C-alpha cells in the first residue's frame, strides 16, 4: 500500500515538473544576444603574438655539438677497483 502511494506521488511530481518546463520553440533570445551574434569581428592584420613555450631541454639534447661541449669529461683512471668476476 505504502509503495503504491509512493509511486503515485512520484508520478504526480513528474507530471507537475513537466507542466512547468518551457517549450524549446518558445524561447526568444534577448535582442542584445542577436546583435552580438550578427556583429562582424575585425580580422587582425598582425598575427597574435603567442608566447612560445620554452623547452631548452630539447634544444640542447638534440644538438650533438652542444652536448660534446657540455657533457662531463670521462674521468681518468676509470679502472674498476673491484677484483674478480662480479
Amino acid at each position, binding site marked *: 500500500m505504502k509503495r503504491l502511494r509512493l509511486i503515485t506521488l512520484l508520478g504526480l511530481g513528474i507530471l507537475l515538473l513537466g507542466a512547468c518546463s518551457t517549450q524549446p520553440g518558445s524561447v526568444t533570445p534577448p535582442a542584445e544576444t542577436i546583435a552580438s551574434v550578427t556583429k562582424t569581428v575585425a580580422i587582425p592584420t598582425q598575427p597574435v603574438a603567442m608566447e612560445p613555450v620554452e*623547452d*631548452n*631541454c630539447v634544444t640542447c*639534447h638534440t644538438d650533438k655539438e652542444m*652536448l660534446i661541449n657540455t*657533457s662531463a669529461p670521462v674521468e681518468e683512471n676509470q679502472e674498476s*677497483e673491484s677484483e*674478480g668476476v662480479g
Partner: protein
Amino acid sequence: MAPLEPWEKALVSTSFIESEHGQASCSTCHLGDARAKDKETAHVNLVATPDEIAQKTCGNCHQEIVTTNATSLHSTQRGYFQVLYTRSIPEDHPALDEAFGNHCASCHTTCGDCHISQPNSVGGGFLDGHNMVKTPPMTRTCTACHGSRVGNEYMGKNEGYPGDVHFRQGRMNCIACHDGQSMHDSEGANHRYEGGQSPACKDCHQQVGKINDTIAQHQIHQDKLSCQTCHSISYTSCDSCHLSISESSGNPIFKTAATYSTFFIGKNNRQSEERPYEYTVLRHIPVDPNNFDYYGENLLPNFDLLPTWAYATPHNIQRVTPQNQSCNACHGNAEIFLTADKVKPEELEANLNIIVDQVPPEVPVTP
C-alpha cells in the same frame, strides 16, 4: 659493443621527439628547469630516472604492466633478500640492507633500464636516442647484467666450451624463452626457482617423456633429473665475494676469490611439485660467512641453513654431453657427483642436504 661517448649517452633523436612518447615535455617526467639557458640551472632538481616512480610516469598509460612489474623479481630483488635473511637474524638486517644498497641494488631494474637505456655495467646511455625499445636488445640489456655466467655460457664465451644449442643453431635470443610476460610478472614467487618453471623446457619440447618419446632415457629419468643434469656442460662457479668501500675513491667494491668451471650433480634442495627432481646440477655461489664483514661482525650467523652449492640452470644446453653418451658415463661416475670430498670442510654442514652420499651404481651392460 664499445661504451658510448658521454655526449652520445644523452643525445635525443628527432625520431623520439616526433614519437608519441616525445609529445610530452621533458620536464613532465624529468622535472628540472626547461626554461633555463645553462646546463647547471636546467639540471637543478632533475630526475634522471623518472621511471623509479613508474606509477606516476610510465604508469599513466601502462598502468597494468607497471603495477605487475612493481612486484617482479627484477624490480624487488626479493630472491636476494630471501637467501640473505635466511642466513641472518632480524637484528642484522639493517647492516645487510646497507651493504645490499651499496653493492647489489644496482641490479634493481626499472622500465627504462630495459626499454630506454643500457645498464651502467656497460657504461649506460640511451639504447636508441631515448626511443622506447619494445624488445630490449639481448647483449645491451639482458646479458649486460647477466653476463659473467648466463651470457658467457649461452654465447659460448667460456674457452673450450660451445655455446648453447639454442643460440648456436636456433639463433634464439633471451626473449625467445623469457618473454615479456614472464619478465614483468613473477607470479608472486620469492625466488627465481620458486613456483612454476617459467620458462620450462617442456614448453617447447612437449614430446619429452610422453608415450611416443623415442628416447627411453627421457621416460626413465624425467622426474628424477632436471633437464640440465643430462644436457648442460661445465659452467662457472665462484668463491667468496667480499664487499667493502674503497678507501681511495669511496666507491663500493668487491673482491671475488676465485672463478672456475665445474660440473657437479647433486641433490635437489628446491624439490617441489614444479621441480620434483631428485638430482640437479649445482653451482658454487660466491657466498661465505665473511662476505659482509666490512658492514658488521658475523652478519650471517645462520650461514649453514642454505647450501653454498646452489640449484642451477646453466645456459649451455647441448643435445649430446659427456654425461649422456652412455648409461655409465653417469652411473657409477663419482667424478661428476658432488660428494663430500669435493666440498670445503667449513661448508660441509651447509651442504649436507645436497651432497650425494651414494653415487648411482653402474648399470650392467649386456655385450
